[in-house]
């Protein structure tokens, strides 16, 4: 295992120390492993809390700041944080207007956030609403299973709901935006290589030199199927096609297209992939209104990428363009 770490057991707290040193505008609660906006709680503003296993950086801590999250909880690598962390985050961002939990649909994340909400509500009258993201079309949607994973759309939810909260909208409205984004967004990912969980010490799966995994999530899970290595052009089709056949994205105001790197993918390749994705969308008659290209929701050192498409509308585009000032997403005044 080749990593820039010390003891595998200390990766998360040590990285949080670095984040705190690099970003004095944030406040890091090292005991609870929660990263707060420096000015949290903001009176009268809905507080946005997310979190999940570590290993997906910059998600979530890199999205804490003006116009996005108020706090992010860092679990162990690929392991949902515990309820205490989420409760501490919730208390710390409660400015009287309620708190939104943005939860990716994994059994662990859902249960721990649920327990955290129970904890907080048992002791205070803070209103907590949860929105669960489940945008991964690689997983069959079914009432009889855990359902779909929450992947790329989570970043868009955090940006767009964050902008709504920054505007001072009430909790119900902010939650509605988050749900709308989740309902109108879909993702699909692929991997060229596995990743290595520090505590495990070796790659989660073996992938021959001439094969790739299609339909992976963000935890180094194997995908839905293994296929021969293919050119970027075909990879773009394999990712975009299932997204579009799950949800019609033509017409309207176009989509927000998000091409995401899994952590070990050079930006050069992501831009190349973006060109291919745009080509596939054009052929399908889907217009791109906004885009995001980069490694925003990663899976440690995995090489690969995912494509997320969000059917946009006027309001979502306006929220997208609203200023955001976080370590890893920043634009506007």
């Amino acid at each position, binding site marked *: 295992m080749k990593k820039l770490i010390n003891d595998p057991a200390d990766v998360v707290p040590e990285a949080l120390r670095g984040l705190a040193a690099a970003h004095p505008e944030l406040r890091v609660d090292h005991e609870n492993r929660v990263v707060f906006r420096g000015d949290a709680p903001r009176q009268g503003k809905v507080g946005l809390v997310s979190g999940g*296993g570590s290993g997906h950086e910059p998600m979530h801590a890199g999205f804490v700041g003006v116009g996005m999250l108020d706090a992010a909880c860092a*679990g*162990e*690598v*690929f*392991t*949902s*944080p*515990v*309820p*205490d962390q989420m409760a501490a985050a919730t208390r710390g961002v409660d400015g009287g207007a309620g708190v939104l939990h943005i939860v990716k649909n*994994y*059994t*662990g994340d859902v*249960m*721990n956030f*649920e*327990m955290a909400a129970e904890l907080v509500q048992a002791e205070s009258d803070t209103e907590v609403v949860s929105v669960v993201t489940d945008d*991964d079309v*690689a*997983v*069959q949607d*079914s009432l*009889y*299973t*855990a359902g779909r*994973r929450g992947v790329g759309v989570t970043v868009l939810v955090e940006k767009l709901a964050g902008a709504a909260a920054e505007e001072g909208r009430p909790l119900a409205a902010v939650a509605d935006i988050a749900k709308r984004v989740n309902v109108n967004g879909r993702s699909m990912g692929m991997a060229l290589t596995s990743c290595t*969980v520090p*505590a*495990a010490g070796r790659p*989660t*799966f073996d992938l021959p030199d001439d094969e790739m995994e299609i339909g992976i*999530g963000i*935890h*180094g*899970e*194997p995908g*839905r*199927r293994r296929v021969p290595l293919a050119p970027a052009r075909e990879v773009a089709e394999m990712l975009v096609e299932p997204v579009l056949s799950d949800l019609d994205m033509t017409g309207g105001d176009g989509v927000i297209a998000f091409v995401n790197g899994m952590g070990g993918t050079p930006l050069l390749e992501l831009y190349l992939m973006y060109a291919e994705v745009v080509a596939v969308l054009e052929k399908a008659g889907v217009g791109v209104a906004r885009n995001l290209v980069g490694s925003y929701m990663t899976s440690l050192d995995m090489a690969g990428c995912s494509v997320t498409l969000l059917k946009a509308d006027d309001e979502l585009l306006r929220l997208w363009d609203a200023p955001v000032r976080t370590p890893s997403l920043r634009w506007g005044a």
Partner: protein
Amino acid sequence: MSAVDAAALTAWVREFARLVHEQRDALTQLDAAIGDADHGANLDRGMTAAVAALEAQPADDPAAVLKTVATTLIKTVGGASGPLYGTFFLRAAGALDGDDGRALAAAVRAGYDGVVARGKAERGDKTMLDALGPATDALDEALAAGKPLGEALGAAAQAAAAGRDATEPLVARKGRASYLGERSAGHVDPGAASTTLLVEAAATALAGRG
């Protein structure tokens, strides 16, 4: 015969922690195949903390032992197994009323029901329930048939192991393995494997009790 007292339950917890630590890599490898390669690390972290908590503040009351384990797991494990194992011990602690085998069996049943309620899975979904469920049933049946606790726990451990092995061909419907669809078949569920260790630890540590 000595009771299922705080010391006995502490011994159970220690034995479970020891087995998890010993099997840590094996559990993680099972999770690597159909999950995210952290189950061994997760449970080992939690059970190490639970044993430390019991050492720091030894409990006299059997329910207090289980409660300490529950809160420690909930505070330190995370993931799916943290809330599930935490809920198991929390509900068991709440239900524990007495220090004999039947009291223990009732507590285990309550823990099992808690896991079902928390995780909303059913047997056959390829989860820890597939080991814990048969074990709970076997324990009740053996005690009802008048078997001593040690023997009953032995039967429960056998039922857990059989349930664990039976997860191999299943297609997962709950937990992370469900994302793999058909590809989840052909692998033993890591949670069913760790739950089998829990029951085996009870059979070892509580033999001769109750």
